[in-house]
């Protein structure tokens, strides 16, 4: 059996392209076209014309935020029961499945005899988290979700990246 090969021809420059100057002019024509288009659009925007046509693709980040896709995995939150206590039953599924081992759960007895356990503390180290979403998949109680749309996660120390249960239950920073 012969090996079938396909010879890919390298494009040779023709004389017009080898002269270099015409191609330089073509390039300058293209880039200065963008320049004058955007410049005049900016000027029109300043006097309130053609607001519909964007003059740049820039998103001015802290003031103007990009619309995240609906299913994007962002910072975690713990969901609550109707009485406001966490849905988590401290089954350790998420802690077990976590590939980064960033979830730390301490379980305790739940006062309601129908529910076996509840977390005494539920801590996620976001400095270690890889945002794989396995914890959400593993949870049998729908107690942990990654739908807060918080992406600007930062802290001045490694300690600051560790979130406790209170922060996870109230993702928008509201103190319970």
């Amino acid at each position, binding site marked *: 059996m012969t090996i079938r090969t396909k010879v890919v021809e390298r494009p040779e420059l023709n004389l017009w392209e080898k002269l270099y100057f015409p191609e*330089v002019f073509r*390039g*300058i024509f293209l*880039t*200065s076209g*963008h320049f004058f288009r*955007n*410049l005049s659009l900016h000027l029109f925007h300043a006097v309130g014309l053609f607001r519909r046509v964007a003059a*740049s*693709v820039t998103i001015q980040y802290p003031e103007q935020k990009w619309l995240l896709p609906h299913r994007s995995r962002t910072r975690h939150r713990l969901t609550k029961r109707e009485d406001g206590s966490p849905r988590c039953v401290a089954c350790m599924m998420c802690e077990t499945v976590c590939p980064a081992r960033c979830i730390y759960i301490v379980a305790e007895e739940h006062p309601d005899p129908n529910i076996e356990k509840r977390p005494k503390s539920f801590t996620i180290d976001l400095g270690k988290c890889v945002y794989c979403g396995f914890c959400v998949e593993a949870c049998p109680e729908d107690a942990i979700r990654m739908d807060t749309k918080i992406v600007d996660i930062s802290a001045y120390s490694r300690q600051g990246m560790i979130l406790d249960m209170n922060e996870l239950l109230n993702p928008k920073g509201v103190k319970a």
Partner: protein
Amino acid sequence: METILIQSILAVIMLGFVFNLAALHTWMERKQSALMQDRIGANRAWIEFPWKWMAPINWLLRPFNALGLFHPIADAIKMFTKEDYIPPKGDKFLHTLAPCLSLFFALLGFAAIPFGNTIEIGGRIINLQVANLNVALLYIFAMVSMGVYGVVLAGFSSNNNYATLGGLRASSQMLSYEIAIGLTIMGIVMIYGSLNLQELIRAQGNYLFGWIPLWGVVLQPIGFLLFLAAGIAETKRIPYDAPEGESEIVGYFVEYSGMKFGMFFFTDYLETVMIACLATTLFFGGWQVPYLTQTGFEFPWGVQIAVTSLWVSIFQILSFVLKVLFFCWLFMTIRWTLPRFRYDQLLRLGWHYMFPLALANVFVTAIILLWVMG
């Protein structure tokens, strides 16, 4: 005494123009590249006063803030407050001298650039040129080529192999293109028969067929293109930035930081302005405004508009400034359009194409001159 005073005032005007234009280049560089790439560009250097009674001043500052015009100031503050590091095994004296030399020679050349015709103030005729030299063109090219010393010294005194190699690349590039740039302007010198820039510009005030301004670019189109190409090579900016190569190949100023690096950076912009001034003076009629004589506009279709001599001078200076700004814009556009030449391509372009073409241009010009003048 009065002559010295007048010359110093002219020098201050020229320096002010050149310094501000070069500083504005940092702003132009950011904003123009942004517009060319559908971005907004730097606009976060924001000056605003927190007190209520300062509101009108804040309102006045707003457009400057929004346009990012305070970024050059922020740059300057950053450059001055950064650590100034001299490599311990480098040559301390030469390391400090190199950026000073670069900047000094880049600035000296501007003395011979005429930015307007003669004006008469109080019975005294003032030539709008800092130094009226008979050999202005030679002087400018001498100063431009002296700039290579700063570059080579910077590479040599840093005690860094990459810096030395960058300095060598820069020197061979600048020397190669020096020859090409010298030959491209020979055509102009032969046609107008003078090395005095003021006379060169006056000679460009004639008209071909009575209506085409007889600027250098009309008589020497190939010379003009070659001059542009070689001139950009002299400024060491993209596409000829093999000596610097900020992004990956390390250049001659790796070991420089703070304001000394800033001086090299500034020299680049000064050289760009210099080449823009030269292109204007030699090929685009300097301060000449088409159809403007000392008494007013005289259009070839017969219309005449009388203009006072003060306004004539203002129009001429404006014309010079606008032409220089156009060339600055053009160089910036080229810098953000073309990719860098490989180093062997760069030298081959200089020696195998630019140099023979410039020679041929001189040869053809000479034959035509002989044929026309008999």
